[in-house]
């Protein structure tokens, strides 16, 4: 038998071999594994937090895989960096959905990223889990596929205002970075302190300005007891330098994401005295203790781990919901999310191992997390998180008030 080997047949067989070698594992994976995407802000504004969320996602997946997976299937986790940038995030989400075939995208942090990828996720029926605060998130989630592990920003505003009132401040002025996260926070703040205690109309500034002098002059002109400035760290650092330089001696209040270690290094001793607030993990809870142990962290008084803990809770609850639903059909998994997290009279579990064991034993469970007790309202927004107010003293955060849910 003679057979002519032409260039065309060589190319054809080469291409077929290449395709088989590269695609077969993907196809097998798609058939066997449960694909989950992790899209975290590993660089950019959320850079200090993203890697911690990623690490938590990985730890839970590795643990579950080592114990035989969920529904007898292994979890295949694909990690992407959102760069805290909606454009990069949309490209990454596209890849996660269309190439990796994920059932959920977990870990988005900035509201603009969460909202930016939402249309694609909704269209593809992909579950989203985030720590974003924009009040628009539940509004735009038409299919009930979004679960938010962060308090919405009006809640931040209300909590910070309650704690500020307890400190005895009577008059306030407010200015905020012009974005959705801070806008609704201002509304929440004014709601609690009362519009009569706010001396001038709250106003907004844009980020990336060449000067914040006139805004600061406006803010402090009526010399209020306290000023509240919801912001991000880059603009707040420039704004705070100007507040200090213009001689304001009242109380500066902001959000803790603006006053991290880099802020303190940049402004030095002038940072002392600033009060800042943030939703924090329930530090006395069993799940938080376990998280600190798993992540090999030291428990610290001031700085906690609001986002790393949320990462652990996101992956744990998603996989528990898959086990509970008995399928990877995302609509059913989303429904099962409430079954495994919310409601009374169920067995409380603090980690995925105990949760999976209880579900397999036919028990009803309520997962209590490291970031919060993880109870969702009907829109998939976390119901309550502890809230903490800290003051910078001697260059470090000292907890001064705590609201517990």
């Amino acid at each position, binding site marked *: 038998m003679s057979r002519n080997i032409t260039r065309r047949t060589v190319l054809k067989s080469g291409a077929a071999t290449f395709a088989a070698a590269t695609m077969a594992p993907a196809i097998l994976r798609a058939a066997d594994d449960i694909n989950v995407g992790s899209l975290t802000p590993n*660089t*950019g*504004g959320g*850079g200090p937090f993203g890697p911690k969320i990623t690490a938590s996602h990985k730890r839970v997946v590795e643990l579950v895989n080592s114990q035989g997976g969920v529904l007898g299937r292994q979890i295949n986790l694909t990690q992407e960096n959102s760069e805290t940038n909606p454009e990069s995030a949309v490209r990454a989400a596209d890849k996660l959905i269309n190439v990796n075939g994920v059932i959920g995208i977990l870990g988005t942090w900035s509201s603009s990223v969460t909202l930016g990828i939402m249309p694609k996720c909704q269209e593809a029926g992909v579950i989203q889990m985030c720590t974003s605060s924009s009040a628009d998130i539940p509004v735009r989630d038409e299919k009930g596929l979004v679960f938010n592990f962060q308090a919405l920003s009006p809640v931040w505003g209300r909590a910070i205002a309650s704690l500020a009132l307890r400190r005895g401040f009577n008059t306030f002025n407010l200015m905020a970075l*012009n974005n959705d996260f801070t806008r609704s926070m201002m509304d929440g703040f004014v709601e609690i302190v009362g519009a009569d205690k706010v001396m001038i109309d709250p*106003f*907004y*500034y*844009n980020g*990336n*300005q*060449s*000067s914040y*002098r*006139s*805004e600061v*002059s*406006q803010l402090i*002109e009526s010399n209020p007891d306290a000023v509240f400035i919801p912001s991000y*760290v*880059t603009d707040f*650092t*420039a704004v705070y*330098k100007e507040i*200090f*330089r*213009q*001689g304001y001696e009242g109380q500066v209040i902001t959000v803790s994401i603006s006053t991290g270690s*880099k*802020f303190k*290094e*940049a*402004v*030095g*001793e*002038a940072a002392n005295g600033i009060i800042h607030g943030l939703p924090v993990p329930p530090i006395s809870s069993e799940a938080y203790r376990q998280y600190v142990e798993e992540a090999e962290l030291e428990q610290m008084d001031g700085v906690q781990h609001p986002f790393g803990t949320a990462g652990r809770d996101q992956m744990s609850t998603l996989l528990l919901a898959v086990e509970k639903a008995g399928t990877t059909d995302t609509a059913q998994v989303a429904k099962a999310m409430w079954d495994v997290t919310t409601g009374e009279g169920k067995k409380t579990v603090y980690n995925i191992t105990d949760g999976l064991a209880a579900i397999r034993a036919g028990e009803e469970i309520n997962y209590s997390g490291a970031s919060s007790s993880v109870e969702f309202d009907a829109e998939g927004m976390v119901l309550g998180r502890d809230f903490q107010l800290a003051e910078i003293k001697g260059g470090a955060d000292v907890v001064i008030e705590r609201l517990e849910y």
Partner: protein
Amino acid sequence: MNMQLFVNGIVNAALIAPPAIAFSLLFGVMRFPNFAIGGYITAGAFAAYAFNVQLGLPLLASAVAAMALTGFIVWLSDIIVFKPMRGHGPVTLLVVSIALTLILEHIIRIIYSAEVRGFDIPLQRPVKFAGIRITYEQMDIIALALAVAVATHLLLRFTNIGKAMRATADNPVLAEVRGINTGLVIGFTWLFCGALFGLTGVLAGLDLVIEPLLGWNLTIPIFAAAILGGIGSPYGAMLGAVMVGMAEELTVLVLPSSYKVGVGFMIIAVLLLARPHGLLGQPEIRK
């Protein structure tokens, strides 16, 4: 309040005047608007940060070193990027300069990340008189801007290199024919302007916050000041800086501050309608 806004405007003007002068000088000699100024200023700020915080030099010495280093970087950018493209039109060079600023910004981002940073000096409380608040640091910024303006004036008016710069800006071919070493003049202009961008990086780092977008945030006001004054005219740039600085601060009296950033553009648009060559610029004669 109004007097305070006036002082705020003067400090703003002092911050954008030196780079507006440099931008204008560069335009005069090179004949294209160099948008890489944002990257140059950021490089200046990070150079000063490296000398001051990482190497522990005093701020003044760090500022001088940063001016020298930025001058070198800016000169090098001409040798590597712009010199090989001399024959191209201003629009091509403008686009290349935008690319260059992005490259510089990203190099800095790779080395230093996007974290906020500050110099190793304590923040100052202001001195108060007649209801006005101003810090010594801000007075230094104003004094330095005036010194730069005077020094540039003296350089252009009374020194040989300054006269050669003016001659080259006016007509490079004629200057060359008359025996001026235009290559040397161009090299000096890049170095001198680079030092001014370095100085601006230091001052902006003191005033705002050191981060990779620092220079980019100043680019529009600087550009506005230079165009307003008459692009190519250093004296016009000084005047333009005062007007842009004032306008941005006084805007808050009549407009919400979130519209402040747009004021620079508005001023450019309105003034250019009335005076297409700017306040002190000369209409270009096209043959």
